[in-house]
């Protein structure tokens, strides 16, 4: 333990040293040691503010440990360690450096005590993370990465603009609760919203994450959105509008997830949905709700990593994660299948699995504060999660009809990483007190009441039933082989179909809007290139006479201006 050393720098500097080490056990050991040492360092730091210094006339607090940043930092370090183990087999400097640098930057974000430091790490995280997408080294990934980078850096610029305005108005730069009405705060809110993938600001997530490398997606899934959740919890706890935003976030991805074929993209949608729960928790803003948001973020990092890891293993072994091409893999990859199902059970909030212990905090808080509409929507969303993430992912990958693919089991290091994640998921589910102990407000809560368990089991049972029925009746989208529709079941199909239609309509309107904007932008660019392009008036070499003419014109203008 070194007094005042920011674990973020430990990871970042270590990441930069990584390529200098000999490949193999030395480098792998070193990479694993970094997050572990970071965790020890973090654990040893008493709560407080460290490493303050002056940057022109601002006081930067580059390291702040308190109960809210602590739990996120712990989760980040665990995720970083898991990702290192998962990527142990890799022989790629780029991914290894980015895979540690990016978690380090994200760690810096949650440990930042002021908005300027927050912004710096915010941008560092954006820039370092894109390499995990580019590391796939395909044209498609390159394009997706560029789009991703544009949005991420845009979020950073908004943040900076907000910070400057906030600083001008308040003279303070410390990162505490911000009043949404105060100058600059809306910009900051929007910047956070982009990274938290608020509805309509979410597209970058589904666009970019599935394009990253096998290990890259695992790393990406843990940090960017969660650091935005942290930032929202710190800055905008209790802002009413977050409840609405969160509910929409939890609801809309369900329909997209159901019809999506790329299983990693399904997981990206389900990520939106989980983030929605956390955002609702932050919007409610009571200690119980905030604890719920933090706890759920913690659990989500683990089970989402586990799910992405299992899909990554499938992608690595079979070369595809298309639901329609997979199936029957449990014969070839039984361990991966088992671990994936632990992740699926966790995300679906089965009793004795992690999300059960964390999501109930949010649901309970919603109920206690009388947000009944939000509560009901979240209940529905919980059922939806089970549907698309809990059942669909393992079902189409490992069961369903046998695709005939026969491949080896996942590499050992992947299995170890998944195993640890699975143990943690179950651990949190069985002994939630351990997690509750490090929650920001350490509320007293018992998830295992009869009501909770029964409600949840009913929900899951009905959701499972719905899925079985839909699959049996052949209505379930990706497996349309035998369609035998009975009228009884029509409404079951009708409901999602209508919803999908509505969303389709909205989607089309949105596309139409973006298309129009795109056309306008193209027109502007064309106009600009006409005058500013290589051979435009403003870029060519002018005859000397014309240059002189300008000088004389300006002189004349000045004389007129000054005389009048």
């Amino acid at each position, binding site marked *: 333990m070194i007094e005042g050393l920011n674990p973020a720098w430990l990871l970042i500097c270590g990441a930069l040293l990584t390529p200098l080490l000999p490949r193999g056990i030395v480098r792998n050991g070193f990479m694993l040691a970094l997050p572990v040492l970071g965790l020890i360092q973090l654990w040893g730091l008493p709560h407080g503010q460290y490493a303050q210094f002056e*940057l*022109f006339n601002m006081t930067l607090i580059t390291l702040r440990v308190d109960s809210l940043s602590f739990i996120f930092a712990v989760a980040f370090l665990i995720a970083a360690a898991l990702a290192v183990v998962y990527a142990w087999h890799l022989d790629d400097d780029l991914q290894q450096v980015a895979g540690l640098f990016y978690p380090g930057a994200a760690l810096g974000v949650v440990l930042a005590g002021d908005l*300027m430091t927050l*912004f*710096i790490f915010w*941008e560092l995280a954006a820039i370092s993370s894109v390499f995990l997408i580019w590391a796939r080294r395909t044209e498609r990934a*390159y394009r997706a990465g560029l789009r991703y980078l544009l949005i991420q*850096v845009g979020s950073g*610029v908004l943040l*900076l*603009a907000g910070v*400057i*305005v906030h*600083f*001008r108005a308040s003279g303070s730069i410390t990162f505490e609760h911000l009043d949404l009405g105060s100058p600059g705060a809306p910009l900051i809110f929007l910047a956070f919203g982009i990274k938290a993938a608020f509805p309509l600001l979410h597209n970058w997530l589904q666009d970019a994450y599935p394009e990253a490398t096998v290990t890259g997606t695992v790393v990406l899934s843990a940090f960017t959105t969660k650091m935005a959740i942290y930032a929202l919890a710190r800055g905008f706890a209790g802002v009413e509008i977050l409840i609405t935003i969160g509910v929409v976030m939890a609801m809309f991805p369900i329909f997209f997830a159901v019809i999506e074929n790329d299983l990693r993209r399904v997981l990206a949608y389900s990520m939106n949905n989980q983030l929605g729960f956390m955002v609702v928790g932050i919007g409610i803003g009571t200690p119980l709700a905030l604890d719920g948001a933090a706890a759920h973020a913690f659990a989500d990092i683990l089970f989402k990593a586990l799910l992405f890891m299992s899909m990554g293993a499938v992608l690595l072994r079979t070369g595809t994660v298309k639901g329609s091409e997979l199936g029957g893999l449990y014969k070839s990859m039984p361990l991966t299948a088992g671990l994936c199902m632990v992740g699926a059970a966790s995300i679906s909030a089965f009793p004795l699995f992690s999300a059960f212990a964390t999501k109930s905090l949010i649901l309970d808080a919603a109920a206690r504060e009388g947000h009944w509409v939000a509560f009901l929507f979240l209940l529905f969303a919980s059922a939806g999660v089970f549907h698309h993430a809990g059942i669909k992912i393992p079902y189409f990958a490992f069961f369903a009809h046998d695709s005939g693919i026969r491949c080896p089991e996942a590499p050992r290091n992947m299995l170890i990483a998944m195993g640890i994640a699975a143990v943690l998921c179950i651990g949190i589910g069985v002994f939630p007190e351990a997690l509750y102990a490090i929650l920001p407000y350490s509320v007293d809560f018992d998830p295992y009441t009869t009501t909770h368990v029964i409600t949840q089991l009913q929900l899951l049972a009905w959701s499972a039933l719905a899925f079985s029925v839909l699959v049996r009746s052949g209505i379930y989208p990706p497996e349309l082989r035998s369609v035998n529709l009975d009228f009884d079941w029509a409404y079951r199909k009708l409901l999602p179909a209508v919803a999908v239609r509505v969303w389709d309509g909205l989607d089309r309107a949105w596309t139409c809007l973006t298309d129009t904007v795109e056309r306008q932008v193209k027109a502007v660019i064309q106009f*600009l*290139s006409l005058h*500013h*392009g*290589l051979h*435009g008036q*403003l*870029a060519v*070499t*002018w005859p*000397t006479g*014309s*240059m*002189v003419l*300008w*000088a004389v014109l*300006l*002189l004349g*203008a*000045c*004389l007129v*201006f*000054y*005389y009048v």
Partner: protein
Amino acid sequence: MIDHLPALQVVIPLIAAPLSALFRPGRAVWGLAMAASGLSLLIAILLLRQVLEQGVISYPMGNWPAPWGIEYRVDAANAFMLLIVSMIGTVVIAFARTVVEQRIRLPEHKQPWFYTAYLLCLTGLLGMIVTGDAFNVFVFLEISSLSSYVLISLGRDRRALTAAYQYLIMGTIGATFILIGIGLLYVMTGTLNMMDLAARIPAVSGTRTIRAAFAFLTVGVSLKLALFPLHLWLPNAYAYAPSPVTAFLAATATKVAIYVLLRFFFTIFGAEFSFNVMELDRILLPLALIGIFSASVVAIFQTNVKRMLAYSSVAQIGYMILGVSLVSVTGLTSTLSHLFNHALMKGTLFMALGCISFRIGAASLDRMAGVGRVMPWTMGAFVIGGLSLIGAPLTAGFVSKWYLILGALERGWWPVAALVLLTSLLAVIYLWRVVEVAYFKPAPERPVREAPLALLIPTWTLALANLYFGMETSLNAGVARRAAETLLGVAP
């Protein structure tokens, strides 16, 4: 000795210039030039320390007292400028040797003349800064201009000749306008000493002659500092000059012209007269804004990277003038800070480009494919310089952008602040084009080696300075602020 520092600041490079013409080509002459500019840097540092501790230094040339003789007058503002120019002068001369030996359109036996011209240019720039006499400014302006025309014409591309010629015409017009302005002031006040002028102008400030002088000075100085739309000489001059010359001129020449602008309009005419009575800011502000936007967009479409950066310089000059037209301590701080920071970032970028063209012969985008892989150190420096140019935090460029935006917000000019942010994104686009080509395109088939250490060391010195001054801001924010307060006359 210590009393004569203001004079030595100019005299040392002035003597070294003709001396170096006597040398044979080789390391000795370079050593002489290096020593002369190194000494200038040392003197500049000493002067700055002295000024910060003891206040303004006044040095009567040849012991002729102030209003009659020529006075050298050093305050926080020009001590800061002296440091910028001599620092860049020293780093670039270290860079120049290898390029001069191999890449300049001069027969070998004439190579020492390069150093003569270079040192004369340095002399002129330092003289313009240090002097407290308006006519003396013109004399040194001519010294630096004439030598810079020579330096530009040494580029290997034959277009360098026309570029130098155009610069000569425009520069001479600019200098003439300045001379006319000074002459008119002299007619009305009978003095050339700046402080004396400042004291006497208010009595006659209502006259048309003073107004005409003001107009001539506005346009003359704007020509020299390449304010849009008087920037047309600049892109070609920078694009076709030899790389050390480009790095040197881009980092210093236009900066000194901006300093002259500040000196004339803040010290001689006074901020009150220039901006409240004459409303100079009404001319500067729109030109600065159009310049920033237009030049940034032009830069996006350029395929010659050197020319791209030249246009980017025009845009950056726009930021500095924008800071001036805010007429506030914060605004001026951003201008002065950007003078320093821009010298660092453009110095780095042009030197890195110099390394690249040294190895691959040109700095066009299509030739630079995959260069990032074969010349990692060079491109590393380029990226650092680029980040600083964009204004990324922890780089020097961030400091000046920060003050500029704060200054704009202070005046309540939201759209201006937004435009500054937006145009920073334009900088991201044109720099990204270079990065994309250098890192994401396949490496060149012909073997290309990393640049020699003699080029890399000066380049990286400036690149690291970009990072250092992004975090340690007592110089480029603290001293800049004091200089701004001095210029506005609100110094404690």
